């Protein structure tokens, strides 16, 4: 049974408040080739568009604090929940290709073929980097916030132990797939879910994590649950190698700004800045923020928004 007192302090929208965090000015659903994608916008509908993509296991409302800082500068900030995340539909299948296709549907709707500024965080930054390489005509410039993957080595592990680890990974993933037809996210109180999320985001304040629960979760009879599709699982395996993303960076023809948090976290790529800097594009640069973790825009919203606004220039 849920303790109603645990939900105290929510605002008129049933959301946990946080300083300078604002709901989107507009939300709507977009049909993306059979998958319903939830779009969120901050700022005037008539302002020039700036696209903003969240990371894996996040959702667009994680920009509640950051996006308004760009909107007040005159941008129409457009973000969307990736399939299976936030308010978007739980899809039968998930893949990088699928996410790219959904992204193009949003681009087409918002900007047609016009080049616009794009900001991506974590997986969103990596995905946008690949899209910028595949379709550069859509990008006026690109900001990648701690989303430059790099090979993460596990040292001191013998080959036969690696095989054992992969076998367990595979069996665990298949066992998970065997349960997805009936699986649901584990319920809990608002604070319990915030604490759980805090284990992966140890640098973020509890009040922010509470807001995440009330914007990325829903309340049912037995407690709060995250909206994200239970079929999705953190981590994974496959033929793709994170370091392959680096090969796309040097050739990007649009202005590029990378923002890396120097503090390593579980949800980050663990990318050492010195490994990335040699791959900057001709019109690119990278800012490394000491003492900041993977969620650079949440930990340092004022600093990062200033960096981004200075980089993208005035709305036009």
């Amino acid at each position, binding site marked *: 049974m849920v303790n109603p007192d645990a939900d105290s302090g929510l605002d008129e929208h049933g959301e946990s408040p946080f300083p300078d965090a604002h709901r989107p000015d507009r939300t709507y659903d977009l049909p993306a*080739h059979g*998958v319903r994608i939830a779009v969120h916008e901050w700022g005037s509908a008539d302002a020039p568009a700036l696209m903003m993509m969240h990371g894996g296991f996040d959702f667009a409302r994680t920009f509640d604090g950051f996006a308004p800082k760009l909107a007040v500068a005159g941008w129409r900030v457009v973000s969307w929940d990736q399939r299976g995340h936030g308010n978007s539909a*739980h*899809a*039968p299948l998930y*893949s990088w*290709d699928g996410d790219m296709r959904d992204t193009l549907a949003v681009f087409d709707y918002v900007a047609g073929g016009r080049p616009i500024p794009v900001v991506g965080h974590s997986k969103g930054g990596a995905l946008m980097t690949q899209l910028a390489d*595949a379709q550069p005509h859509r990008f006026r410039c690109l900001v990648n916030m701690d989303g430059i993957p790099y090979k993460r080595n596990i040292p001191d592990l013998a080959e036969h132990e690696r095989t054992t680890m992969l*076998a367990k990974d595979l069996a665990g993933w298949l066992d998970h797939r065997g349960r997805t037809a009936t699986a649901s996210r584990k319920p809990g109180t608002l604070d319990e879910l915030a604490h759980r999320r805090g284990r992966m985001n140890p640098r973020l304040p509890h009040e922010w994590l509470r807001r995440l629960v009330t914007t990325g979760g829903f309340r049912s009879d037995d407690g709060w649950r995250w909206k994200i599709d239970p079929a999705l699982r953190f981590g994974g395996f496959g033929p793709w190698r994170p370091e392959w993303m680096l090969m796309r960076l040097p050739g990007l023809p649009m202005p590029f700004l990378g923002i890396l948090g120097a503090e390593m976290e579980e949800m980050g790529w663990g990318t050492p800045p010195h490994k990335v800097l040699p791959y900057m594009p001709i019109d690119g640069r990278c800012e490394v923020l000491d003492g900041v973790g993977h969620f650079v825009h949440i930990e340092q919203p004022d600093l990062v928004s200033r960096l981004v606004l200075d980089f993208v220039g005035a709305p036009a």
Partner: protein
Amino acid sequence: MTEAVILRHNKIDLALHILRAESLDAVVPSRPLLLLHGLGDRSPDSVPHWVAAWPGPIAALDFTGHGDSTVPAGGGYSPEMLMADVDHALTHLTDGNPDRSITVLGRGLGAYVALQIAGARAGQIHGAILTDGPGLAGGPTGPTSQSVFALDTDGSSPDPYALVELGRDLRPGDYAVSFVGLANAGAPVATPIAVASSFRPQWLAAVAEAPGVIESSLADALATYE
């Protein structure tokens, strides 16, 4: 007509066709043979002549987006997800008993998936036979310039997204060989993988050269893994 069992994999209904049921005279269950079709194909309607000598039950699975299985909206295919399709068939064919095993025969794309399940569920795959069929080559072996696309679909099978996405998936040789290592380490037989194809794309050539993999005719491989 053959009987089809519907297996639920997340939001997908998978059609598992029972081409030959277990003999009513069987005292103990005999080892099933599972057939995996190629890209864009579907399961056969009856026991193909090239596996007729198999002594036990024979089943064939329609992958997601193929045959009588669900065609999902919006694409997002990967061979790994088809491996999870096969895992559902494996559970059904072994009655959920982890001590029972099957032999799997894959054509084309199905061969690549057969290799994966042989590594991932090594203790339950007595043998995996990899042979020619549609989609055997797959996509590149490393990063390439990439197109992003959307297709018109009407829900009919095979799903056009499956045809494109599973026809260009990354198949590095060392990734394929990692499944050989897992199969060799965990399988109940010494040589759990047999390559019976004439065509050898890079990933399959790497597999064929890996320790513990046998090259064989289809008939000999079936006899080996009864």
